[in-house]
């Protein structure tokens, strides 16, 4: 045995028992670190910026929409082009809580201007009435607001009438039928996505900001680990949210068992005083 046994140093264990313990600790910490941080680095390495289909939909029509919407005289792009454009905007507005307020404003402004152009004659009045009714309905949700049931029904009827016009204009539903599937969800966004606009021209400011906003919300870091499903989860999500915690418990369990075994093997007493105390207590009874 060395003579320098007075010093305690993690990297210089003195006995065989201490060496084993240090090895055990080191292995546990390494497994822990690799499992937690190694996996994140793997994600970073694999990540590819992947656009949602809605982004392609947007980029397909964006320049043409802009040139003509900015200058109505040159002739409007076709109805289907504009519908494709509004559809892509709704896909982003549907992310609701993820979208920042200032970005929502830009999206709503572009959306409403295009909606106005799609509505044709009388569109301006329709939008104004719709915005007004939707606001009143929102207020009526608050129990403090005293709106009679009859008034409420009237408001709902007006909103529904206008909204079915909008849905037809936006191509979310054929005239006379209800929207279905995702289109139904998009239609449900309308009360919060339509604002009063002066004309069907998308402002320069909005034009400048829009492509960046669409990129921000429609491009995601994806890779093979995020696209694989495991017991219902995207794999990477399951790994981090559940497996790592399971692993933590397992590391602790294995460490504890191994340490106990190590202590027994080398005759290391962890609680020498405790035992003698208990013996004394027994004896005094």
């Amino acid at each position, binding site marked *: *045995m060395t003579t320098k*046994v*007075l*010093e*305690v*140093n993690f990297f210089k264990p003195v*006995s065989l*028992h*201490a060496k084993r313990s240090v090895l055990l*600790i080191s292995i546990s*910490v390494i497994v*822990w670190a690799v499992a*937690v*941080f190694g996996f*994140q680095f793997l*994600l*970073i390495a694999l990540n590819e910026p992947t656009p*949602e289909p809605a982004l392609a939909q947007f980029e397909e029509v964006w320049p043409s929409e802009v040139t003509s919407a900015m200058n109505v005289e040159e002739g409007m792009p076709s109805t289907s082009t504009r519908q494709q454009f509004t559809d892509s905007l709704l*896909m982003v507005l*549907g*992310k*609701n*809580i*993820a979208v920042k307020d200032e970005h929502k404003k830009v999206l709503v402004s572009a959306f409403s201007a295009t909606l106005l152009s799609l509505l044709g004659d009388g569109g301006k009045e329709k939008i104004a009435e719709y915005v007004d009714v939707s606001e009143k309905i929102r207020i009526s*949700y*608050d*129990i*403090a607001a005293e709106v009679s049931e009859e008034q409420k029904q009237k408001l709902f009827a007006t909103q529904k009438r206008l909204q079915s016009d909008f849905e037809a204009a936006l191509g979310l539903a054929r005239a006379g039928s209800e929207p279905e599937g*995702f289109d*139904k*969800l998009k239609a*449900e966004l309308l009360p*919060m*996505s339509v604002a009063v606009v002066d004309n069907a021209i998308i402002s320069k400011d909005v034009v400048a900001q829009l492509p960046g906003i669409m*990129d*921000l919300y429609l*491009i*995601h*870091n994806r890779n093979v680990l*995020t696209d694989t*499903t*495991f017991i*219902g*989860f995207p794999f*990477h999500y399951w790994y*981090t*949210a*559940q497996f*790592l*915690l*399971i692993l*933590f*418990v397992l*590391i*602790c369990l294995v*460490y*504890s068992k191994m*340490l106990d075994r190590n202590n027994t093997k080398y005759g290391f*007493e*962890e609680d020498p005083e405790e035992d003698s105390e208990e013996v004394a207590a027994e004896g005094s009874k």
Partner: protein
Amino acid sequence: MHRYINAIALFFISLFICEPAYAEVATRATSLEGSLKIGPAIILIALLITFIVVGLLNRAKDTATYWAAGRKISPVGAGMAIASNWMSAASFLGMAAIMYGAGYHGLSYVVGWTGGYVLLLVLMASQIRRYGKYTAADFIGDRFYSRGLRGVGAALAIFVSFSYCVGQFAGIGLMFKWILGINYMWAVIIGASVVLTYTLISGMLGVTKNMQIQYVIIIASFLIPTVILLYHYGYFWAIPQIGYGEIVTDVVNGLKPVEGLSNTMGHDYGILPSPEFAMPWDPATGQTAFQWIAIAFSLMIGTAGLPHVIQRFYVVPKARDARLSVIWGLFFICVLYWSAPIYTAVGKILSANPEVGKLSKDAIVVYAAQLGDIEALGALWPLIVGLLAAGGISAAFSTVSGLLVAGASAFSHDLYHRVFRPEASQKQQMLAARLATIVMAAAVAIVALLKLGLIAQLVAIAFSLAGCTIFPLFLLGLWWSGSNRTGAWWGVIAGSLVSVIALLYFVCGKFDITLPAHAFFNYYLNAWYFAWLGAPLAILCNVIGSMVSRNKTPVEIRKFLAVEVHGYKPEKVEEAAKEEQAD
């Protein structure tokens, strides 16, 4: 076992007494905010009374019988106590809030607040227990043979407890706001008064053994709604922790409106594709991979440096049982952490329509349950939601009362008595402790009113503080005799300096004061995760300081470390000590 039955019976009796008020419950249930919710209020009061009465019934006569009972407690029971002590508003409300707002980024908190236990157990638990000091300040003062450092240790423990409490008070305020339908300011003030009263009452009870019961009630209040929600919305509900995987996938791929299912406001149950909810470091969340790693690291290091967590190891009689109880504790904590994302995922779909309005993220757990349109249960559902809110408050209460007591005792015992006025009598110390509790509660309430961040973020500050300052002292103090007083000072100063800079930039930013290189510091030394730099730097400074100084750790302490803490053979150590003296 009968303790549990007693507690549950008591809870229902107190509910029964308030029974006439139920009729009103159902009518009030529909509005998310802005009204007094009688059902939840009753449940909260019943729960608090239950805790206090159970505490009275299970009261230990004195400290000795308490520890005697503690010895008989099984590792499972001790694990529940650890979990109950740990689970706070940050785990109960804050984690789901972060995930709701920032997706995958929020998982760094889930991992950070559990992974630290591995470090704690593997690196320090056995050694701390064998060192056998009662508080963090005691250990620091003794190991580094310095009254000054002991004072610093106590002050740090107070700071850490303080910032830990701020987040809890914010959570208590939000829940009181939700239950009473009043504004945030009054909610915090009322909540703070209630928690202070609760702390003083339970403090008078002395040591109680109701931690296990608290755990059972808190975890039940958290899990019951998840089963019901998943059942109602057609997922695998038997094990909601697995069942919610499909909800996450639904959010990512989008979910077409499901026939016949809606939220309480009548919106369809469905969502447009929202991959930003689960994809790693989504640009839309504004969070980067670096921040994820920095937060997870800081929280883990911080866990292993939190005074009130470390403290649990000083007093456990048997090393093996101590380890087992930590493992059980970690498992019981994980039960909550496995379940928290369920509320986030359900809440994300139920609040997909913007008409739901801007929900306070920190209350998303409760809102998610409230938006669940469970008609089949009638007036019972609002009560279950109320129990959930009450569970959140109790989680915060148990943590706050523990922290207030720990902070106050650090003041009266470690600072007032040991450093400033050694001649103070027992009575004066008690008075100082009481006063410190009240002052601390008031100060915490004032800071909580400033709304400096989300609950989880505010609590993360405490973790970074502990990680920068206390963790390095324990790690090096236990594992390296060479770390001496000079090194400890260097380390503490470096860690504190990083903390002060980070917090200065944070606070100035909140008050719209721009300091030089503000964006840089805000990103790399953010208040939520500055320990990623501070802790390694403090360790480095500690090592360098120890090496350059001539001031060697006294031989008695080195002997103690070698023999008592690390179990070296006493005769060999004695020999070496003699040899050294001869040199």
